[in-house]
């Protein structure tokens, strides 16, 4: 199993997903420093092959 790609995701990107409601988006904007807003979580692409 290997991680082949990592991408930073922003608060604005997460806000597009209905799972992240207005409450959690507002919390992130308020509690995280501005320099973190474009890199709040990481999307990872993982690949594996069954033996």
């Amino acid at each position, binding site marked *: 199993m290997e991680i082949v790609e990592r991408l930073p995701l922003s608060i604005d990107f997460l806000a597009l997903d209905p799972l992240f409601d207005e409450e959690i988006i507002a919390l992130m904007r308020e509690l995280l420093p501005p320099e973190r807003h474009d890199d709040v979580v990481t*999307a990872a692409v993982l690949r594996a*092959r*069954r033996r």
Partner: protein
Amino acid sequence: MTDLMHADEIRQYVKHAYSSIQSTGGVSAKELYSPDELALVPASTIDLSLGVANHLRWADLPVSATVLDIGCGAGIDSILAAHRVGPSGRVVALDFLPEMLGRTREGAAAAGTPSVEVLQGTMEAIPLRAASIDVVVSNGVINLSPRKARVFAECARVVRPGGQLCMSDIMIDEEDLPPEVLTHPAAWAG
């Protein structure tokens, strides 16, 4: 560690979030997919796309392969996979929400990809035979399960020996996020 006592609560939260999704304007799709890829997909499918990465770029999808797309949503990855495996291939688009399956069915028809077939079911109990799939793909979905180990066991069961899993999802550093965010139900997606 998963708290199975909250599994139903998590599932209901996820179901509520995604069962009545409206258009996103295609913003996330335009950020993740190339113009050439988006040209293969109906606008209605692009509008409802909610992936977190473009994992198909890393997937080995030969012509005639059988692909399982776990949590197909509105179907963008199923349709793109269908274009790569061709009419002799097969793409099983799995989702537990009938609304999403309907959109995938419509999008696949509009895209001219008859090899996409929708299947309703859960990723914790994939309604497919063992070793029946060449490639399992998934985009920002497995994190939504309260039983992730079970999901990976099911992936291993349905993929044939030598087959591939190629997935994308969100990772978080728990030490990096405030507790108010980590304890919110939506944080389950991370």
